[in-house]
């Protein structure tokens, strides 16, 4: 779950955070600060390039436009290749997700139990596509803390369904943005790894490049965001089912 939040939130949001030392803070406070970094803006729009690389090095590319408001609403619309253009996903509060296929001219709700499934051939899951605060989903424990980095162990809160038993989040100790995440399955084996590259756009930290690798299959997904715009005054109606089908 945290994977989702980190990867996608990184694209869409940034928060201006005063550089500060974290030595004196507890795990919950640190996680809250991460959420503040990731969900700092009121809304965000960006273009996303999705590069899929299989274990043999073969690549394919997709493009999409993403809109997000707050930490509960997100619209994801594919723009390329032409065959996929218009396919859209809408993520709303209370685990509600919709899918729109333009060729069928109709939307369908996505069952909640598929949240851990792969999203459109990427290494991200449907769950990763939703916007949700980390502190709502995870119980954090500090594993390591020094001048430059903090490592948190995140364990899904009771009742949160996750394919991971835990994740280990490495943060920049000054600005609280994620640097990398390791994902572990139920047997404790590391199965995925994600690297983040953040840069500052205006007042917000933006994860302009995220690379997730499935260590079991060797498959890799890279997300590169461009044309990032913050605080454009998006309204709730931009995240309605009607907006999805437009």
């Amino acid at each position: 779950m945290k994977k989702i939040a980190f990867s996608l939130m990184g694209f869409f949001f940034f928060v201006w955070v005063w550089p500060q030392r974290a030595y004196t803070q507890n795990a919950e406070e640190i996680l809250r600060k991460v959420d503040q970094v990731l969900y700092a803006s009121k809304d965000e729009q960006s273009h996303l390039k999705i590069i899929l690389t299989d274990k043999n090095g073969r690549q394919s590319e997709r493009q999409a436009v993403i809109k997000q408001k707050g930490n509960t609403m997100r619209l994801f619309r594919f723009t390329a290749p032409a065959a996929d253009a218009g396919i859209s996903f809408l993520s709303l509060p209370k685990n509600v997700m919709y899918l729109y296929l333009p060729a069928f001219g109709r939307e369908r709700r996505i069952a909640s139990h598929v949240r851990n499934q792969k999203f459109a051939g990427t290494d991200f899951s449907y769950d990763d596509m939703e916007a949700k605060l980390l502190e709502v989903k995870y119980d954090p424990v500090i594993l390591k803390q020094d001048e430059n980095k903090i490592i948190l162990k995140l364990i899904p809160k009771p009742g949160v369904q996750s394919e991971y038993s835990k994740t280990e989040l490495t943060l920049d100790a000054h600005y609280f943005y994620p640097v990398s995440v390791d994902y572990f399955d139920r047997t404790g084996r590391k199965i995925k790894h994600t690297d983040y590259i953040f840069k500052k756009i205006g007042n917000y930290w933006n994860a302009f490049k995220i690379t997730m690798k499935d260590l079991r299959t060797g498959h890799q997904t890279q997300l590169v965001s461009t044309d990032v715009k913050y605080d454009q005054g998006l309204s709730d109606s931009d995240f309605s089912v009607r907006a999805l089908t437009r």
Partner: protein
Amino acid sequence: MKQFADHIIRFRWLVIALVSLLSLGAVYVLKDGMSINSDVSTSLPDSDQAARLLKDIGDEFGGNTMGLVGVEAKNVLKPGVIRDIARITDSLKYDTLVSSVVSLTNIIHIQGGDFGISIDPLVKPGQLPETKAELDSLTKIVFGNDMYKGVIVSNDTTMALIMFTIRAGVDESKAAKLLRNKIEGMHLDERLYFAGSPYLVIGISDLIAHDLKRLIPISLLVILLVLWLSFRSFKGVFLPVLTAGMAILWTLASMKMLGFELTMISDNIPIILLAVGSAYTIHVVNRVGIMIAAGRKKAVAEAVKLVAVPVLMAALTTIVGFLSFVLGAYLKMIRDFGIFTALGVMFSLILSLTLIPAILSFVGNKSAKANREKKAKTNFIRGKLLQPLFYVLKERPKLIVTIWIILLLFGIGGSFRVHRNVNMVDYFKKGNPTRVAEKKLRDKLGGTEVVYVEFTGNVQSPGFLKTMKKTETYLKTFPYISQPQSVADLIEQMNEVMGEGKKIPSNAKKIQQLWFLLDGQDIMKQLVNSDLTKAVIDARFSSGNSDDMHAFVNAMNSYLKNHKSNCCKVEFSGMPSVYSHMDTSLLYSQFSSLLLALVLVIFIVALLLRSFKSGLMAIVPIVATLVVLFGVMGLVGIPLDVATVLVASTSLGIGIDYSVHVLNHLKQVQQAGKSGDEAVADMLQITGKAVVINMVSVAAGFLVLMLSDMVPLIHFGLLVALSMLCSGMGAITLLPLIWKKSIQTKNIKS
């Protein structure tokens, strides 16, 4: 020949040194043993369309070698068993040796309803069913879907199936063995069955290795025993075995140096060479024994001069019998067997005419005791077998003819009942774990033989998918085909959950967008290639019967021929197809190699005896033997398979020797002035004895193969032994009668 014999004696030290050196070299080459290749599919010619397509499918779809794990329990739809199935599935899924895995816990499940749409595994990771309600729900889904019922879970719920494909490019046998060890290492409560082509190949390799270790010493003991009973002398026992041993060593070293591996056919080359290769030395030793009174060196040279031609003739005909596989064989392993057995026979011949005279020129005369014992032994054969036989030949020839006519009638009748069998499962004895696993999975879960129909074109076009669906519907009409699956099924199901019915959309855009949702699902890489130009229907075939396979393959080929599509190219392959081609090729191999061997043998015998009539006469006992042989196969139910297809030409090559010796003797005594019964009596007394001894020793050598763990080799050993007895008896009964008749006819004419 005299010059040759003199040279051997003159350079005897050189001969012994050279042979020793070559043998040491062969030992060095073989110091690490030989590799075994028991995969029949690698033996198919590159020109075989079914084999080529199967290989292409492997390259395009991540491998075509499917392993199957049957998980047996009282009820596999119980939490503990489901947990274990999930454990095995996960351990295979992320193994680098495996390209895909499908089981109860990860098979794709597409559904739609008020809750929305979902495309996910049938059993969600981390949410294994525990409660009664969850288990009941799973049971209902499994038995309500043709993709799962009887395919992933048996109808009686006692067995679940885990299918995995070994990644293309890895050593399949090694990979299958490692994966089996890994799964067995989990020490699960359920009983596990490992089946599918990689486990068949492993099973056969193990049997070959076991056979080699066990049968060579036994064969050696049998040959030693027969030789001891025949000669009762150290020379008579040691030298033939020495020749055969060296010939085996040289042959295997040649194979290894030339990059050939042992196969389920060539693994019996050592036993054949033990049985056949020692015969030439026996002749040499025997002849030298008779000549020794003239002085050791001189006697050896003289003996070589006399024995070289008949030995050469016998070896040549045997070599021709084996070489006939080169032109006639469809499978590379049969061709290789022919080449290297012929080479081994040639080595035996060379050693018999060089090394053996060289050694004999050093060692002493046969003891008086040995001579006495040999005489006693041969008297037994003459007194109890040959004298009564002579009486019958002379007084009651019609009895002999009648017996042969009856045998031939039985043979002809039985020949029509000979069936073919290329199913590798039947190579194992009943009770063998591999055979048991194959049978279990065949009976309960739709078989283990993969069937593919490959479609090439624009995979996402409506026409392409509709053609796939139509072909799949046709496939389902065959009783032995278990649930075929394709991407067309998935698109239909997706279209249904989008509310447009269970059918292929006619709009390509819709297909592309449904496809988008399926992208990344594990099953997709099994069904569609990465650049979306090829897709397969994947099914399994559950009958091991050759006729069923043949009928299925013919019907499919005929269907595809009559239902050509403009939107895609459709090709059909899979193990039934490969087996069917092999099956047809067995008949072709049988007739072509046999015909070739017969023609060459007639030619060689005619040339050596300088009489075409002799050539024709020589093959009479052989033809009679072959008729009886096929008759026995038909009556007893021994099928024509990759091993028994070798019997006819092998028997011809070895059995013709008897005819040659008999005819040669009759010709010699006729030239010496003897005729009719007198000549026959002389022939029986001298050559007849040799034929009987040789017939028994060769048959005994081949009968050792009956101790093999592989059913085709058991049949092979039995049939060659039978044909030895038959061709030997034919040579000393039928041939004298025909010869006498031809003499009488000639006399009447003149």
